[in-house]
C-alpha cells in the first residue's frame, strides 16, 4: 500500500490519541474505583443498582423505625413493670392488713400509702414516649389519657394501635392497650384503700386474690412487650444481614475489581509508552536524509 506522509503522521497521532484516551480511562477507573459512572457503562447493571439502592434505602428506614419501636417498647416495659411493682406493694399491704394485729390507725396509714400508689399509678399511665407522646393513649396520645376523679380512673385515649412499619406493607404494633390495664389496677387498689379505711380484716383479705390476678395480667402484658422487643432485635439482625448482602450486590455492579483495574491500567500504560516510542523513532527515516 502506498503510504502518504500525512497519513503516516495522522495515523501516528491517532494511535497515540487512542492509547492516551485508553490510559486516561483506565486511570479514572482505577482512581475512582467505579465501574459504573453513567447508565451507558452498564444499562442492566444500572437497573440492578437502582433497584438494590431502593431496597437498601427502604431497609435503612425500616431499621430506623425499629429503633423508634425499641425506644417506645422499652419505655412501655418500664411503665408496665412499674405498675407491677405498685400492685406488688398493694398486695403486700393487703396481706399485712389481713393480719389481725394491725389496728385501724395502722390501716389508715396503709390507706394513705395506697392512695400514694394510686397517684403513682396515674403518673405511670401517663408515661410519655420518645416523641413526647402518651404511651398508653392509643392513637389519641397527645393529651394525658388518665385522670383520677372520685375514686375512679377515667380514660380519654382510644384503643387503636400505634404501629411502626417494619417491612414493605408489614407493620408491628408498639402500643400497649392501657385502658383496661390501668383502670383495673386502679380499681383493685381503690377497693383495697376503701377496705382499709372502713372495712374489716376479712374484707381486705378479699383484696389479696384480685391483686394477685391483676399482677398476672400485668406480667402477661410485660411478656407480650418482651416478645415484641425480641422481634425487634431479630428484625434488626435480619436487616443488618440484608444490608450487608445489598452492599455486596451494589458493589458488585458499581465497583471495579481493584486487581483487574490495576492490571488494565498497567496494560494501557505499556501500550501508551509503546505508541510514543514507536512514534518518536518511526519518523527518522526519509529519502531526504540520503540526498546530498
Amino acid at each position: 500500500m502506498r503510504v502518504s506522509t500525512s497519513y503516516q503522521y495522522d495515523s501516528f497521532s491517532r494511535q497515540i490519541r487512542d492509547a492516551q484516551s485508553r490510559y486516561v480511562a483506565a486511570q479514572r477507573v482505577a482512581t475512582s474505583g467505579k465501574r459504573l459512572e453513567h447508565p451507558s457503562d452498564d444499562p442492566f447493571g444500572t437497573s440492578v443498582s437502582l433497584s438494590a439502592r431502593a431496597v437498601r434505602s427502604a431497609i435503612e428506614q425500616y431499621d430506623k423505625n425499629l429503633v423508634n419501636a425499641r425506644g417506645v417498647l422499652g419505655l412501655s416495659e418500664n411503665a408496665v413493670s412499674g405498675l407491677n411493682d405498685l400492685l406488688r406493694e398493694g398486695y403486700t399491704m393487703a396481706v399485712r392488713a389481713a393480719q389481725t394485729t394491725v389496728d385501724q390507725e395502722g390501716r389508715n396509714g396503709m390507706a394513705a400509702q395506697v392512695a400514694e400508689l394510686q397517684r403513682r399509678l396515674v403518673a405511670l399511665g401517663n408515661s410519655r414516649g420518645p416523641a413526647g407522646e402518651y404511651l398508653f393513649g392509643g392513637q389519641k396520645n397527645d393529651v394525658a389519657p388518665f385522670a383520677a376523679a372520685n375514686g375512679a380512673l377515667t380514660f380519654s385515649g382510644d384503643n387503636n394501635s400505634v404501629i411502626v412499619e417494619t417491612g414493605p406493607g408489614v407493620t408491628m404494633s408498639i402500643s400497649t392497650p392501657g385502658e383496661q390495664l390501668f383502670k383495673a389496677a386502679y380499681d383493685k387498689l381503690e377497693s383495697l384503700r376503701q377496705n382499709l379505711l372502713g372495712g374489716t380484716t376479712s374484707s381486705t383479705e378479699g383484696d389479696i386474690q384480685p391483686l394477685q390476678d391483676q399482677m398476672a395480667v400485668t406480667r402477661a402484658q410485660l411478656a407480650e412487650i418482651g416478645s415484641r422487643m425480641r422481634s425487634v432485635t431479630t428484625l434488626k439482625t435480619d436487616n443488618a444481614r440484608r444490608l450487608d448482602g445489598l452492599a455486596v450486590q451494589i458493589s458488585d455492579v458499581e465497583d471495579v475489581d481493584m486487581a483487574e483495574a490495576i492490571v488494565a491500567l498497567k496494560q494501557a500504560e505499556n501500550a501508551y509508552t509503546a505508541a510514543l516510542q514507536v512514534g518518536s523513532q518511526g519518523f527518522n527515516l526519509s529519502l531526504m536524509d540520503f540526498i546530498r
Partner: protein
Amino acid sequence: MPGPFFGIGIASNALRSFQRALDITGHNIANVNTPGYSRQVADFGTQDLAGFWSNGRQWIGSGVGITSVNRIRDMFLDARMREGQADLGRFEMLAGSLKQIEGVFNEPSDNGISSALNKFFDAWSGLASNPNDPGAKLQVKLAGETLAGRVRSTYGELSRMSDQINGQVGATIDEINGLATEIQTLNDEIRQAAIQGGPPNDLLDRRDAAIERLSGLANVNTRTFEDGTVSVYIGQHTLVEPARPPNPLPTTFDASTGRLGTPPNHIDITAGRLRGLLDASFKIEGSSTVPGLKGQLDNLANTLRTEVNGLHKTIADPLDTSERFFNDVTPPAAQTGAIDFDLTVTIKNDPTRIISGVNGPGDGSIALKLSGLRDTRLPSLGNKTIQGFYRDGIADLGRESRLYNDRLTTQVAVVGQIDAQRQSVMGVSLDDEMANMLRFQRSYQAAAKVLTIFDQVTEDLIGMLRR
C-alpha cells in the same frame, strides 16, 4: 523540415517541462499538510511530429511537453467518504447529546431523582412509624421538597438542552447555507477556468472539501457535470446548481416530524449532524431523547400528584383540595407536569399540616399507605411502580446512549479506514516527491546537457561558415 535550431527547441521544451514538473513537485511538497489536497502529477507527452525528407518522408519527434496536470483522486472512495461522514456526523451528535442527558440525570448516585424517591417514601415510612414526632413530618416535607426540586431541575436542564439543540439546528443550517455559497462560488470559478483549458485542480480540491464538510452536516447527493461543476442536493431540495444563485435551506422546521420546511415542501433530513440534532431534539426510534424524557418526567410528576394527593386526605369529598400534598390543578384542567411540580404552599409553610392518620396524632395509617405507594403498580405508569418506571427510563437511556456510542466508535473506525484508503491514493508522500524531484532534477540536467551539445554543434556550424 526541421530547421537547424530544431534541437535547441527540443531541449528548451524539455527544460521548460521539467521545470514545470519540479514546480508541481514543489507544490505537492508545500501542500503535504493541506487538508483535502490531492497530489498532482504532470502528464508528459511527446510533441507534434516533424517531417523531413530522407529516402522519402520521415518523421522525427519534436520533444516533450506537459499534456495535462491532473489530481490523483478516487471518486468512488470520495462517495463512500461522504456517506461515512454523514453517519459520523449524526452519531457524533446523538452520542454526545445522550451522554449529556445521562449527566443531567446523574444516576446511579445519591443526588438523583431515584435517591430522592427512595428518601421520600422512606420519610413516609418514618412518619407512619413515629406520627407524634414533629421531626418526622418535617422530614417528609424536606424529602418532598427535594424530590420535587430534583424533578423540576432535571426537567429544566432538559429544557435548556432542548433550547441549546434548537440553537445548534439554526447554526448548522446557517453553516450548510454558508457552504452552499462557497460551493457556488467555486463552481463559477471552476467553470471559468475549465473554459480556458485543463482542470483547475486546486479549485476542485477545495470544492470537494466543501462538499465533504457539507456531507457531515446533512444527507448530500451530488451530480457532476462535464465542466467539473456540480449540483448539490439535500433530500428533495436542490441546494446548489451551476450557473444559478444558491437556493438556501429553509430555517423553519416541523417539531412533530423533525422535517425542514413547511408542508407540502418538506425536506427530509436523513443523515448528518443536522439529523442527529433533530433526533435529539424532536424524535428518535427510542424514547430516550429530550422530548421523550421530558414526557416521562411529566408523567412521573402528574402521577405523584394524583396518587399522593389521593391518599393524603381525611375529607371524603373528592372535590376538596384543601389537604393536597403536591400542588395540582382543579380537574378537569390538564395537569401541568414536571415544570412547576412542588409541594402546596400550605404544606411548605407548615409541615404540621401533613396528615399522618385520621384517628389522632398517634395514627400513622395514611402515612403507611403513602409509604406503601412505593410498591404499588400504577396503571398510569404502564403498571409499573413509580421507582420501576423511573428506573426503566434510566436503563433505556443507558442502553440508547451505549448503542449510539458503539455506533459512533464503529463509524469512526469506518471513516478512518476510508480515509486511509483515500490517503493512500491522493495523499502526498514526501518520499515519492523526493524521488520525483531527483528524477526531474536529473532530467533537467540532462536536457541542459542536450542544449549545451546543440549549442556546441551550432557554434561549430557557425564557425565553419566563418572560415
